């Protein structure tokens, strides 16, 4: 069972979080092509190894976290807030 260190709530069970997938994709500009949006919505790197992904702490602070996690060992390398560039705490 994943133990995810939430920057706000501390280490919590994976069951408190809602997985939100690949955090490396970026929504294209409004005027971008269907192709660009399709790549954003559907196509994934899906690495075997370190994956940068979103987990929302719905059972705790509800914030969206960016988690760097190894998809083989499941070790978590880093966690930060998604809503703050740099991921520090709010100010």
């Amino acid at each position: 069972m994943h133990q995810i260190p939430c920057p706000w709530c501390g280490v919590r069970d994976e069951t408190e979080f809602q997985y939100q997938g690949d955090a490396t994709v970026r929504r294209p500009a409004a005027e971008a092509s269907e192709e660009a949006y399709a790549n954003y919505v559907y196509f994934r790197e899906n690495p075997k190894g370190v994956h940068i992904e979103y987990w929302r702490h719905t059972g705790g602070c509800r914030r969206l976290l960016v988690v760097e996690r190894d998809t083989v060992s499941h070790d978590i390398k880093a966690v930060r807030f998604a809503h703050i560039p740099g991921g520090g705490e709010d100010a």
Partner: protein
Amino acid sequence: MGNNDFITPLSHLGLREGEGVAGGDGLHLWDRGRVGFFQILARKGRTGAVATALGFDEAPRLASHGVYGTAFATTPGEWVLVCNDDEASETLRTVSGALVGSGYVSDQSFGRAAFRLSGVKARLVLAKGCALDWSPSVRGAGACAQTSMAGIGVIIHQIDDAPTYDLYCYAGFADSFWRWLICAGEEFGVDGRRLTKEWKRD
């Protein structure tokens, strides 16, 4: 307010405000009835301003006690403020005033159930459903956490080292959460048959 027409989330159990059940070793579980419960939301970049205006602590995981009551920093830029029912409307008025320009308050006083669990066995009851470590070396009086138990979102606040815990959950879940607490306490002598009721589908 204090209108007799108001119900609490456990009214249907015939539970009077403050009534509860006891087990062995001083284990005690009761329904606190209604409390003032407010969600405070700071505007973007105004967290500090809100904290100053209301005298809140910005640090997570520890309750801060101010003039308006007890506050839990539930997430960056947000707090839950809890006060006694009889102070609720006054608190809402003053807090709303203090927040103008820097944040907002959402009154949730009716949207939550407030239970209190106390006694040396309270930790064991919690441990049956709460994945957090409440042993004294890790969390003591003043510790608070938002987590989930038995599939129900709860806010837990340890108010003393008895230990005594305040538990808050959504009103609609109150019946199920209460049932779970009674069941978890039965091993320690709690007998809640009179105070649980099979929910009805028809």
